């Protein structure tokens, strides 16, 4: 199809998050706020009104003291491919093509100026990855000074979500063009803000289809799984955990069913 410009290299960016490493410190969240001009209000405790592109959840294994275990699970937008390539749950429902599956990168785009705020995509997203701008964004005092020109501040009434820091990809690409090596972008040249911020190196980011990238190997690990994989959303974000209960907590199972990981463990 005409989807990919002739001069563009095709990639499929994705993330692998090692849940055994994640400490739940929220550096990724804060780095994301700062990187992506995410607005805040004085009241942020009602999480379903709060804008987060990546959010760290706390999972417990449900066992009583002292056999309790905790696992932290950072959840960005999963950049789903959907049932067939590009048929992401949110993309197919957007009536105005404000969100689209970016074929050259495998990232789900979101164009705030096209979005008119119908929120159908939010209804379609099982991960609650999409957030609506219920209020006009306001930065108190002269905090507007720290806003980055790489990411447009959103206006009231539109949906926003994690973009895998697409502007960093653009930045890397611009640099590559400037240096006369178009489309040749090294693995370390494009990393998301959260990946870079994670103080315990729990997040790995790269081209899932490129055997030279770290994520390629990690996503094929036997400890790898994805969130709500059974919905056929086909996320580009993988998780790693050696703990069986974490695998179970990441998807829904009927009583007699088991995650593939547990079956493997028992075998």
């Amino acid at each position: 199809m005409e989807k990919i410009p002739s001069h563009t290299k095709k990639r499929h960016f994705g993330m692998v998050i090692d849940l055994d490493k994640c400490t739940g410190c929220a550096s990724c969240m804060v780095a994301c706020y700062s990187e992506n001009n995410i607005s805040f209000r004085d009241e942020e405790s009602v999480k379903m009104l709060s804008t987060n592109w990546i959010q760290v959840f706390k999972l417990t294994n449900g066992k009583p003291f002292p056999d309790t275990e905790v696992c932290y699970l950072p959840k960005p937008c999963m950049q789903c491919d959907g049932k067939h390539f590009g048929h992401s749950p949110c993309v197919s429902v957007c009536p105005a093509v404000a969100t689209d599956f970016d074929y050259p990168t495998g990232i789900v785009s979101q164009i705030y100026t096209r979005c008119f705020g119908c929120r159908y995509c939010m209804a379609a997203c099982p991960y609650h990855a999409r957030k609506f701008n219920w209020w006009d964004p306001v930065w108190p005092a002269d905090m507007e000074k720290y806003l980055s020109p790489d990411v447009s501040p959103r206006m009231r009434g539109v949906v926003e979500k994690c973009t895998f820091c697409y502007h960093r990809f653009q930045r890397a690409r611009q640099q590559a063009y400037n240096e006369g090596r178009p489309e040749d972008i090294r693995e370390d040249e494009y990393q998301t803000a959260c990946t870079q911020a994670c103080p315990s190196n729990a997040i790995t980011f790269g081209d899932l289809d490129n055997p030279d990238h770290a994520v390629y190997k990690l996503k094929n690990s036997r400890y790898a799984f994805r969130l709500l994989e059974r919905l056929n959303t086909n996320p580009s974000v993988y998780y790693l955990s050696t703990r069986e209960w974490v695998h179970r907590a990441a998807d829904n199972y009927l009583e007699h069913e088991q995650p593939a990981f547990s079956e493997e463990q028992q075998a």
Partner: protein
Amino acid sequence: MSTQTDNTSNTPSNDPSPKKGATGWVILAFFIIGFGFSLLSGWVGFPKLLYKEVPHPIDFNHALHMDLVYDGCDSCHYFRKDGSFSGSPTLDECRDCHGFVMGINENEEKFAEEYVLEDKEVPWNNYAKQPDCVYFSHAPHVKGAEMDCATCHGDIGESESLRPYQENRLTGYSRDIWGWNMSRLGEPEYAPRMKMMDCVNCHVEQTDSKGNCFQCHK
């Protein structure tokens, strides 16, 4: 009621009764008046209302500067190391030459007095200024596709005086983006128009693709 109809029925066109009212021609005339008025006000008056002329802070003479610099456009509009484009030069960059009043002409004096001495950045009007939602990088176009400046910016580099700059009162856009012709017909002589589909059309020609949303939006 019926009698009235009878009275007037013989001379329907010459002597319209008060009840019968105007004839078809008169009605048509009114229609044309309304139609014409709307067309006129819409095509002529409305653009004047919609756009406001913003005076240039300095009537910059590109031609004059081109003669003085070594590196063409790149002398003042250059790529930074990271591949970003510098755009209009900052006051500091102008200062390299304009440290003091040289007294070349009125504009130069004005520039030196109002900006250099006052240490104030010049609020240049940018004809090609895109809104915040647009991501545009010069590097792929100039370095990758080896396009000339004039392809998009017209012959501004050779101009001796800045052409008028108009701003859309509603959107704040430069009038160049939509094009000076309200109907967007024909090619403008100053430079190509810069609405989204103008970019897309060129991309389709050059890359066989409309491009992706994120390619140009942020």
